């Protein structure tokens, strides 16, 4: 194959601000110590390889994909909630048509996963996985139940605050984000090394959803808003 050596320039994306992302090695979260590099990362000026990403070809999403309370014959046990928000880039522009995938424990704090050893009941009416695609304004919406807190083995009497795992693609391979959404006021934040791994407190708080009375549906479900911000380009990319 002949190489194409045409001059072209690439619009770089913003870099993360110091302290706004987790420390890769965070000793109180034990398994980070053996699973992250000891040598510094090599700074890579952005090329086409980093600023492109899988934005096309996601499988279509159905209505029950985003309503985790309607994936089985009966309703799951737990506090029904609505989680909605927008996906934006760091220029404040909506990220449309991007895939969001979520997974979570049930109301008792148990995952439908063979490696989950927590002796809490499984719920035959709850799988705990969902998908949605943002609309043209970057909006998404899930209906689910509030997950329970659960214990883990990181340290003595370790408990994870209730959370929903979020996976978002965005426009570029470098904007790909996997994070966790937390609930306001959780007393476990102070003791959770995963939540605490982000040095900047303001940045950390971006992972906490806001209770929202507007989203709350009378006689039916509490509503939470969770906006997600992805890295964006330093200049407006070409629309094609």
């Amino acid at each position, binding site marked *: *194959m002949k190489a194409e050596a045409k001059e072209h320039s690439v619009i770089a994306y913003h870099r993360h601000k110091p302290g706004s992302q987790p420390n890769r090695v965070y000793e109180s979260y034990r398994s*980070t110590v053996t699973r992250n590099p000891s040598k510094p990362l090599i700074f890579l000026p952005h*090329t086409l*390889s980093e600023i492109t990403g899988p934005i*096309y070809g996601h499988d279509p999403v159905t209505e029950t994909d985003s309503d985790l309370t309607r994936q089985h014959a009966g309703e799951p046990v737990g506090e029904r909630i609505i989680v909605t928000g927008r996906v934006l880039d760091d220029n404040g522009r909506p990220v449309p048509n991007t895939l969001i*995938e979520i997974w979570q424990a049930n109301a008792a704090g148990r995952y439908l996963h063979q490696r989950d050893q927590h002796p809490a009941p499984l719920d035959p009416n709850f799988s705990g996985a969902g998908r949605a695609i943002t609309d043209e304004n970057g909006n998404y919406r899930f209906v689910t139940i509030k997950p329970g807190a659960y214990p883990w083995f990181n340290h003595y009497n370790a408990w994870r605050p209730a959370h929903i*795992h979020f996976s978002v693609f965005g426009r*570029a391979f470098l904007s790909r*984000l996997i994070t966790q959404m937390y609930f306001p006021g959780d007393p476990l934040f102070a003791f959770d090394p995963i939540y605490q791994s982000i040095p900047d407190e303001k940045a950390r708080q971006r992972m906490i959803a806001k209770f929202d009375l507007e989203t709350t549906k009378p006689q039916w479900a509490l509503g939470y808003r969770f906006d997600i911000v992805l890295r964006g380009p330093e200049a407006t990319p070409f*629309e094609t």
Partner: protein
Amino acid sequence: MSTEHIPTPSQTSGPFLHLGLTDKRSVVRIAGPEVTGERLRLKCRVLDADAVPLNDAMIEIWQANAEGKYNHPDDPRGTGADAGFRGFGRAATDENGACEFETIKPGPVAGPGNSVQAPHLNAAVFGRGILLQLHTRIYFAGDPLNESDPVLALVSPERRETLIARPDPAQVNTWGFEIRLRGERETVFFDI
């Protein structure tokens, strides 16, 4: 970038990522038989600081087609012949820390200025203990463009080999790539 729009922090995918990402939605076949290009099987392994395989990690791959073009509107060269080729794969590692992809070798990709990037796959590693995904690249041993690749040139010669997949002597068209997260022969990871 205003202060109100600082990106949401990353968190670990945790040990149960399969539930949301790979039980039903893994993409092991990046390129099916209909896609033009040199077909290959890529066998990856992920190991920790003590060379213990990770049985709960996930690798995502992003790659160009055989013409070196990405299926994305920001690639100014268009998608070329294989408009249906997506270029995305993801797989969870098994008990041996291993996963496999079926794909084609990408073509050379335009680099900064007039440079050309050697054929490579972009890879990200997620998993328990990984709070922010680790980015690396997978190049192909013996490709003559490796010598002039602008990204490999950023890496000291003794560490460059950690970015290069090797042909499997036992199986044709099969390549092996080990990701060592820390310690001896630690893989090069990029700040992208």
